[in-house]
């Protein structure tokens, strides 16, 4: 069986090393936070200037001076620290975050990431912190569906959408399989309700087993 969104978030959460400093991107990656065990001591970073971010809270409990990168109200955990934007992005760019998890439109076999712009001529471009995270974090993990609603693969030989960053993605988590990207090419770490051969036949990217 392929994974549902919650199972996928739980899977990613389980792979984050204890004590890691982690940035979870806007949207689906944000849900990973719910599956992090407190005893793992994972510390969440939000690029708008905080380490030690807690859960998203409902609007009626909101402190609007305390939000995540998606501008949702959140909480502060013990041991938190606030800092300004230049310091926050210095922290990202300087390679201090252990892991960031982002969504994607496409990931290439070489680890190129496309997740900020569809390339549509009438789209208003908006990048936020995605490019900074892509070049900055020690590990860039992508969490996405493996195919678009139209059935097109999102793990591709070359990205056709505008790039966010080059050769930056190290892992791809999808509902059908997880992939490790690196010098050995694209390796399939796990599959869910699909065989390796079936996966290989549906992707235009050379695959090997971990």
């Amino acid at each position, binding site marked *: 069986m392929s994974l549902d969104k919650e199972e996928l978030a739980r899977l990613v959460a389980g792979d984050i090393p204890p004590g890691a400093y982690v940035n979870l991107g806007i949207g689906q990656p944000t849900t990973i936070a719910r599956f992090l065990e407190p005893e793992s001591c994972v510390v969440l970073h939000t690029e708008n*200037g*905080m380490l030690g971010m807690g859960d998203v809270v409902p609007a009626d409990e909101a402190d609007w001076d305390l939000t995540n990168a998606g501008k949702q109200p959140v909480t*502060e955990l013990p041991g938190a620290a606030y800092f300004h934007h*230049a310091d926050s*992005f210095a922290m990202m760019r300087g390679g201090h975050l252990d892991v960031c998890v982002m969504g994607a439109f496409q990931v290439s076999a070489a680890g190129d990431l496309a997740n900020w712009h569809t390339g549509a001529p009438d789209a208003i471009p*908006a990048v*936020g912190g995605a490019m900074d995270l892509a070049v900055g974090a020690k590990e860039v993990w992508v969490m996405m569906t493996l195919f678009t609603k139209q059935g097109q693969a999102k793990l591709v030989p070359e990205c056709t959408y505008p790039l966010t960053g080059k050769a930056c993605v190290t892992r791809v988590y999808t509902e059908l399989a997880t992939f490790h990207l690196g010098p050995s090419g694209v390796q399939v770490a796990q599959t869910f309700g699909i065989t390796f051969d079936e996966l290989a036949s549906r992707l235009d990217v050379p695959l090997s087993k971990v």
Partner: protein
Amino acid sequence: MRTTITDAREAVAAVKDGDTVLVGGFGMAGMPVELIDALIEHGAGDLTIVSNNAGNGDTGLAALLAAGRVRKMICSFPRQTDSWVFDGLYRAGKIELEVVPQGNLAERMRAAGAGIGAFFCPTGAGTMLTEGKETRVIDGREYVLEYPIHGDVALIRAHVADRLGNLVYRKTARNFGPVMATAATVTVAQVSSIVEIGSLDPECVVTPSIYVNTLVEVPR
């Protein structure tokens, strides 16, 4: 020089037609709403606005845009669910847009405040946002040369100021405020309260008074 304490109307009189204005805030957190309202009333136009977003809903920055005062937006994330004012102007070709990765936006203002002439930054290398910019490979990695963004005026929101102009912020509302304060010729800070000199812990001051020209108290 000495920090002035005044009202929003007088504070924004520093803005002139054609100015580059740095506007703090990430969404509404740290957004100097009352200063922006005063700026709309003030009437200065042909502005370049540097801010993370391009306005939400119909108030604040969105209202400034709707009033036709902004020639160009420099920001990282103009497109939001409630950025219809900007969207309309942009699609109508009535406003220029420079999209800058969020960290480059912060670092370019930091450079302006820190007297750095330009810097080689890895962010955006090989992407369309850095097309045409000078690049260089340093230690095997590709970097893009980025230049400072100076402001004529910065409008920011902090939490508490002392009468000298030292500022502390509140939680993630800190965001761009401290950086913008360093990068503008004139920095106007809207704060929830102004306290006597000596009331803030010198170890915890985030923006030293040297960066603050004008204080406006807006109780929240």
